């Protein structure tokens, strides 16, 4: 990875500011924190969900239930990929999600296929009263009629570029980079 191919577009402070605003927006949209459950999509969505939970708990003083989803088994492209991907864990709050307001949290919204998979998986766990979609970066390029409710930042992405969200647990720092792919992988 050359520096030339990787341009930071959000540093830690920018991400935290965005997360703070997203947390307020979610609470406002939901008219409070009643029955609110944050569900991160593995893997980086889970870290962002935890950041949002901390923000909301700090601002509202309420405990927020959270969990995470691994959508691998609900992907629509499993027939075309192989060797098969490693499966992460799925864990939802013990009280279930029936009649709750569930927030799906993911790092980057692109084609919408991950969100489709997450919706289907959530439905197999119960019947939430409402599902919100909250993403740190919306990079456009949707292939399904899926739109986010709360967005950290919209990013214009060229054909040979991709957006990477970095989290401390996996990448050693918090931030968002715009990465230009090497020619052969584009």
């Amino acid at each position, binding site marked *: 990875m050359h520096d030339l191919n990787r341009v930071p577009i959000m540093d830690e402070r920018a991400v935290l500011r965005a997360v703070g605003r997203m947390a307020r927006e979610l609470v406002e949209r939901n008219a409070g924190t009643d029955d609110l459950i944050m569900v991160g999509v593995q893997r980086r969505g889970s870290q962002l969900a935890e950041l949002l939970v901390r923000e909301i708990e700090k601002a509202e003083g309420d405990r927020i239930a959270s969990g995470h989803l*691994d959508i*691998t*088994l*609900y992907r629509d492209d*499993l*027939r*075309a*990929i*192989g*060797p*098969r*991907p*490693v*499966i*992460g*864990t*799925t*864990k939802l709050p013990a009280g*279930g999600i029936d009649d709750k307001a569930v927030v799906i949290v993911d790092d980057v919204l692109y084609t919408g296929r991950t969100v489709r998979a997450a919706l*289907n*998986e959530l439905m*197999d*766990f*119960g019947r939430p009263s409402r599902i919100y979609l909250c993403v740190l970066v919306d990079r456009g390029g949707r292939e399904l009629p899926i739109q986010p409710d709360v967005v950290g930042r919209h990013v214009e992405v060229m054909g040979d570029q991709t957006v990477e969200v970095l989290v401390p647990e996996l990448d050693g720092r918090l931030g968002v980079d715009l990465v230009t792919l090497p020619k052969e992988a584009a």
Partner: protein
Amino acid sequence: MTQRALALGKDLVGLEHLSAEQIQVFLDTAEAFKEISERPIKKVPVLRGKTIVNLFFEPSTRTRISFEFAEKRLSADTVNIATTASSVAKGETLVDTARNLEAMRIDMVVVRHWASGAAKFLAERIRSNVINAGDGAHEHPTQGLLDLLTIRDHRGRVAGLNVCIVGDILHSRVARSNIWGLLKLGANVAVCSPKTLLPPGIADLGVTVLRRIEEAIEWADVLNVLRLQLERMQAGYVPSLREYNRVFGVSKVRLARAQREILILHPGPMNRGVEIDSDVADGPHSMILAQVTNGVAVRMAVLYLLAGGEPEKAEAAKTAEGA
């Protein structure tokens, strides 16, 4: 990107020819599948549209049902074929049966057969994935994997543990799959058995032979107690079941002399009062029901990993080929 560039191949015939890394992939994937059986809707759509045939040439309740649960929880379509009720009873060969099934466009075959090597024989002759559910006295790889998973669950690791397999080693495919799997993952393996039920040359595999059950109990962290098939007595391998129990039976009294807690595994079905006493089978260190639960998760993992679509289309497969 390459979290796992390991090719697992088309079939699971045995653990003998798998690497430690490949075995770990099966176990780690099984770990993730455990949770699905705890969901309100115990089903994920990952094998939707796949047709799986359970082809059983030998009676089996536990293994067949475990595979069937695994298949259904992955949304596959399943057909069960038992020999007594099919053309197999009319003398059709194994390959003819499988080719006829393939002509009906199936994707995977789970096969249990009385002949050692039947699974490999079949795997080499049909396009579908073949999973060995036990072939003669050769291997029972999913049982081996679930035993490994159960040990790992309760001891946190397999490497460095002393595991002793007790009972009829000679006729046991479970023993063979266990020996291969345990050795590859770095366990110390021993067998404890009457001389008549010990295959010649077993020590060449790298296992220790313990003559007395008391020695085994003193040495082991884990005892995997095998079923003594009652036919063995008629064939003259053991003088009587009572005699077997008196000399090799795993009893509470014997376990009480152990220096440490010993995990007790048994692949089932048990002969209570023969190879294992009831108070051990139902005791606090018995993993027997945990093994059954893990069996479903392990089989889900195997089905999921082997059913991998069209690898030639995948980027990861291209890089794996180069390696």
